[in-house]
């Protein structure tokens, strides 16, 4: 854990400095009349102090380093999941809810969880049309319209 504590401690320290700089650009005010930047500055200072303590703990620690990934970790599938969520966000308002969900659900079932082709397709159809029905018809909550919604 030592190396990772060191890395994460450094990252948090950098973040705390950024927070402090950002807050000081707002009106910090004084103790008697605190401004907008006052509280974020305090949280930034707090984060800084604790990240330095994390670094000290990491230096003292004698625990052996563990590997970041578990043995035989499904790394590709993890990256793919993050990627697919990003693609979903980018396509949602262009293609509409049903089409985007259909593609997302199919790809994630097939490529990340290795369900059969047929199961993935069926699953994707049921999930995307099912939720569209629940949200627009039962809950009257609007979802982005697109290609498929216009057809029906």
């Amino acid at each position, binding site marked *: 854990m030592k190396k990772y504590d060191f890395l994460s401690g450094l990252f948090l320290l950098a973040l705390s400095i950024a927070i402090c700089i950002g807050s000081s650009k707002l009106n910090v005010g004084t103790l008697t009349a605190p*401004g*907008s930047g006052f509280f*974020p500055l305090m949280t930034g200072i707090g984060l800084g102090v604790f990240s330095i*303590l*994390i670094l000290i703990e990491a230096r003292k620690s004698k625990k052996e380093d563990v590997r970041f990934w578990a043995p035989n970790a499904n790394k590709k599938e993890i990256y793919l999941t993050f990627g697919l969520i990003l693609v979903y966000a980018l396509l949602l308002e262009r293609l509409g809810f049903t089409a985007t*969900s259909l593609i997302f659900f199919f790809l994630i079932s097939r490529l990340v969880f290795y369900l059969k082709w047929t199961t993935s397709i069926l699953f994707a159809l049921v999930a995307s049309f099912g939720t569209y029905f629940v949200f627009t018809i039962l809950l009257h909550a609007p979802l982005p319209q697109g290609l498929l919604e216009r057809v029906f």
Partner: protein
Amino acid sequence: MDFWSNITMGFSVVSEPMNLLFCFIGVLLGTLIGVLPGLGPGPTISLLLPLTYHLNPISSIIMIAGIYYGAKYGGSTTSILLNIPGEVDSVVTCLDGYQMARQGRAGPALGISAFGSFIAGTFATLALMLVAPPLARFALRFGPPEIFSLMVLALVLITFISSGSQVKGLAMGCLGLFLGSIGLDIFNNVERFVFGYNFLYEGLGIVPVIVGLFGVGEVISNIEVQIRTSVFQKHVSNLLPTLKDWKDSIWPIIRGTLIGFFIGLIPGGGGIASTFASYTIEKKVSKHPERFGKGAIEGVAGPEAANNACSGANFIPLMTLGIPTNGIMAIIFASLLINGLQPGPMLIKNQPNLFWGVIASMYIGNGMLLILNLPLIGIWVRFLTVPYSVLAPLILFFCILGAYTMKNAVADLIIMLIFGILGFLMRKFRYEGAPLIMGFVISELFEGAFIQSLLMSEGSFTIFFKRPISCTLMIVALILFILPFFGKKPTALGSSDQD
């Protein structure tokens, strides 16, 4: 007889068909997700947050509470039959529960955990009803310095009790407080850290942050090493414990209930801390400690009771002081806010219908759970055969839906994704999510109390030490903060519940 009229009111609230229905949905969902490993109450409740927006607040909170205590019942089923905790809190139940199942005694193990849970859950509800109103009345006297000190203590406690490093936890608490301050500063009407992005103007949404951190983060961790499931005993019979089982279990249940209840009152005192404490104590007082780990029914009865008493007690600090004691309570805190209710001392006074309705629903919910988890246990066992690869796409899809439909904003999906990655990295680097979420949800209240205290004292920090209640709270917080540096951190208590 104000007390009785309040209870009667509570039961009349919960007996409205809609509320009864949502109580049932809550405990049903709770049992389901409790049974399924890899899906906990945290993500589930956060997924339902946008939906509760469309319901009335009382039904929502009744349902959400039902999910929380229902999951504790369901979690033990998986522990006993699969040796995998359905919920993190049920990990102790694996030790003796699974051994009982291997000896063909899955029935009594499931039976005693359901009865133990019922007894403890009912006791905790009763205590909640008796303790909460006077405590809230007391807390009404709190001014900004007391509220601030209380929240400092809560943050220190949540990191003190957690299994991980305390400084890491406190760093996460500070980060959470900072994240909560993004957006429009309501005190000065100035925008903070918005960087021209309009969607940040209202601040980071509670739902995308929580769904990302707990929901997506959890699924990703499970993708890394796929969960395999195999049920040890598919056909469960003889659920009713024998007279000897009862004799062996009754004291563990009583002790477990009391331990769980008191641990549940402390911020950071998650279910897992209470179950470990109960197990350790049962092993200590037992005349045959060597039986533990080999299928001792006391090792199932005690921790299961503790776990459920704890979940009831968790509501006390939330409903009376406005302090969420763990990650899931922080989510429930958020759900109250979303429904326009401010958790804290005024809640019972301003929303008696809500408070007493939720209490009454807990009695009824615990009764429903007893039925769901005894005669209907076979249904849940069948759910255990559903592979995770089928559940996971659904969970991810619900995460997306939950995050998006709150405000119909694509930006929320990006926020969810960022916090999903953060949640995954935090697990890897051993940072806990609970202090971050707690800091995040109490940020506004925390800042308000802090600034007001400074204004009251004309800029002097001594105000936190000049007033007796505030001073006591601060001193306890300081002691707890310093203790770990002398190696006095309780290691027997596990991490607070992340999922």
